[in-house]
């Protein structure tokens, strides 16, 4: 259902939700937008956070010998591109990864729809900032807020003014007109195994893992034992130890591992789950120290090679 709330109304709704959930929001510190506890709707930053807040569902490092019950949490101010990452990885790990699933089921995300396209972002190529799936989807419109509410959380909004979805639809068209659309359609058929791109990227890549760690759709982890604990930690498919067997990594060279990353994103996942493993957030480009640009993988002229 869609609602239109005034500022004081959304503040009230926020406080209602805060009674039932431990509440987090995007806030600014030393010029970086990070996630922290918030107590008022007013505290939440409109700006895009420095990183996709993956750790709310997949901790960077966690014990996996026992599954702890998670308190209910609400995360306000996550951007649509970052939230969409969870909906995409749901297809692979929801219900299968008990740690993710426990947190996923107990976490409410209130995504803020970007009013303006961000520099470098290409979310419109993957559907844009107005998502089809959401818990609470919030679009600021001056002093008013258009809110799309999923059935699960309808109770918090019953008393507010309902509206139809035309505000979101209109906004979506306007946003779309302002942004670049990359030719993602059919990419899985265009990508080329022997493309020169992979070696080009490999000559620059310093194996820092930033592309994986920054990506809202990357969910791979490494398992290891420490003392009496078994833990898992975010992993990077760029590293040689990733999925290595006793004979080592089957992708011995960096260009092969980089290719695997992009094939996973744009070919394998698409074929298996009918969705690209990318939301157009541009975070991997921003965090890459050598400027490897995933957009090149999309726009590259493979047939010309």
């Amino acid at each position: 259902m869609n609602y239109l709330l005034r500022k004081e109304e959304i503040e009230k709704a926020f406080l209602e939700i805060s009674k039932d959930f431990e509440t987090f929001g995007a806030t600014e510190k030393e010029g970086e937008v990070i996630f922290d506890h918030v107590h008022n709707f007013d505290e939440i930053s409109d700006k895009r956070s420095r990183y996709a807040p993956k750790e709310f569902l997949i901790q960077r490092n966690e014990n996996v010998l026992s599954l702890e019950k998670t308190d209910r949490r609400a995360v306000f101010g996550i951007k649509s591109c970052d939230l969409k990452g969870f909906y995409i990885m749901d297809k692979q790990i929801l219900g299968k990864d008990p740690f993710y699933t426990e947190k996923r089921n107990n976490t409410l995300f209130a995504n803020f729809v970007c009013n303006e396209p961000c520099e470098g972002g290409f979310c419109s190529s993957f559907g844009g900032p107005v998502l089809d799936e959401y818990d609470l989807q919030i679009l600021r419109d001056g002093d008013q807020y258009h809110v799309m509410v999923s059935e699960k959380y309808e109770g918090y909004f019953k008393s507010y003014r309902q509206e139809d979805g035309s505000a979101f639809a209109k906004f979506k068209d306007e946003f779309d007109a302002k942004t670049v659309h990359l030719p993602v359609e059919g990419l899985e058929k265009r990508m080329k195994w022997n493309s020169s791109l992979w070696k080009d990227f490999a000559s620059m890549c310093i194996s820092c893992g930033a592309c994986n760690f920054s990506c809202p759709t990357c969910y791979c982890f490494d398992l290891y034992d420490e003392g009496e604990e078994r833990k898992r930690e975010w992993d990077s498919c760029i590293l040689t130890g990733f999925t290595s067997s006793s004979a080592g990594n089957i992708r011995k060279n960096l260009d092969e591992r980089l290719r695997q990353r992009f094939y996973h994103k744009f070919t394998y996942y698409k074929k298996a789950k009918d969705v690209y493993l990318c939301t157009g957030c541009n975070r991997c480009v921003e965090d890459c120290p050598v400027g490897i640009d995933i957009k090149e993988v999309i726009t590259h002229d493979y047939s010309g090679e």
Partner: protein
Amino acid sequence: MAIVTVLTVCPYCGTGCQIVINSLGAGERVVGYSRSPVNEGKLCIKGYSGLSYNFSNERLKNPLVKRNGEFTTVTWEDAIREASRGLKDIIRKYGPDSVAFQSSAKCTNEENYLMQKIARMVGTNNIDHCARSCHSPTALGLITTLGAGAATGSIKSLEHARTFFIIGSNTTEQHPIIGSKIVSERKKGKNLIVADPRKTQLAEIATIHLQFRPGTDIALLNSIMFVILKEHLEDRKFIEERTQGFDEFEKEVEKYAPEVTENITGIRPEDVREVAMIVAKEKPASILYAMGITQHIHGTENVMAVSNLALLTGNLGVSGSGIFPLRGQNNVQGSSDMGALAEWYPGYIPVGSPKVKMLEELWQRKLPDKKGLTLSEMFDAAEEGRVKAIYLMGENPLVTESAVSDVEKAIDNLELFIVQDIFMTLTAGAADIVFPASTSLEKEGTFTNTERRIQKVNKVYDSPGTAKPDWWILNEMGKEVAGMKNYESPEEIFEEIRKAIPSYSGASYENIYPEGKQWPINASHPDGTEILHETSFPIGRGKFIPVSYGDPAESVDEKYNFIMTTGRNYYHWHSGTMSRRTDILERESPEAYVEINTDDARELGIRNFQSVTIESRHGSIKTKARITDKIPSKVIFVPFHFEESRVNRLVGKQLDPLSKMPEFKVVAVRLLV
């Protein structure tokens, strides 16, 4: 659940990347600080995945004292009492030069300042630290030629270079964020010259890779300068207005025609010529170097040769030009600035100079005027019984020092050995008393990075058990051993540093946060100094110092027919105390190895991953072969991270007579299958 968000500095290399840690409990989230002028939001794998050592179960949690060969947990009160009494007794009995202090470039400026202050206040200059084994030739070399032993520009200024000349630095692995900058600039079409015996990642994308023989740096650099002079490409104006000693230097370089040096370096004259053209013509050029230059018995002269090249081509004082000694440890610039060195007081005041008077007034104590023992000399003295006690903070010489077998004997011979660390290292295991310390994520202070940027270090986590910040421990020890005043906080120590070191005088905890400030920062440079030597050098004119090529200490013969060089790899840090306790880093590089050239391996019948024995004239180790084309024939590379296969058993004790740097980069060895 508590959330902490803290902006601090990565604890690994001298780049000094600023990190934002946003922690939900122990599940920390690390990102690069996007406003940082150092790393602009970028990090390498050590920044992202290297911090979990902090939560390792193996952290030292309580003070330990060895009784009948076994460590027993004691209170801090007892540990400090026992340690300070022990030191005082030895000083009383044998005099202050019977004790030695080893500080740490992993620790903060405040802590290094305290450590050297304790040493000097008890009356000895026996204070040193691992800068000895990394950039002591830089300090001495560049202070002699330019007047300041530090990088002349900023990391950001590299963007303004048209040419990069990199010698003896595997930059993308050892200073990855600086390396990534070079990669990006190279992709924009900048010139890149890499002089390195190994085919590093930068060598692969270089305009020219000079794959010269280890230890022949001076022959190579002089031959490049020979061509520059012959072709009249030197910067005449710069030489006349800003330098001295040119004539003598020119006379020396005349002996190094590339046709002559080819026999020494293995580099073809046409390559030398091409490099000379690029460096002299494509200005500004930034010259970057690291351990490949310094870890030689000619380390200081190597640095001077690099300096000569910069002076000859006028590549100093302008953004995009300059000399960049890439600092290894996170705070090796700072620990050196603080004077944790046997021959220098804080601010590089030479021991024995009349300027020490200023510090005597500040500390209210008559200070020793005799040069102290350097790192390896301390162990020699211990072996000979001249040094009876060592107080060591955050170093692991039983893995990292050259000729480690002798270090073992030296430590055995001590009456008292005190070690302060975050883990039970091999070295801590040999101690009589062990102080458990906080990591840099658990304390406050400052680090100074490779571009002279003084940066604020902030506390993210609580320490485990009763572990304490190093400054707290030193403060307690200082009061007991040296009658030092009490410091309430790192900031109080920093305020004293500002008084002791003029180039730090304008810095404060307030103005260096969040982005840091580059020294000198003082009344005339209130915002710090990005580019050094813009109009003049601290010593007036830059000095050409003629340096002549001499062979490395060890050379190959029929028996020891390979040259071994040692160093780090991308994933590990020095003795591995931290990096080997983080999951991802240890997984990437879990065991000791030796890189062997493909042809050599074929000839010797060595398969990949096969176990081989490496023997030098000093010892032997067993390790695993890694066969690669990235290393030239007859040269092998062994990283020094692995305590189970310590390569420093193979490295001899030959020291650079000027800086006392051991020659880690040229060791004659043979391979036994």
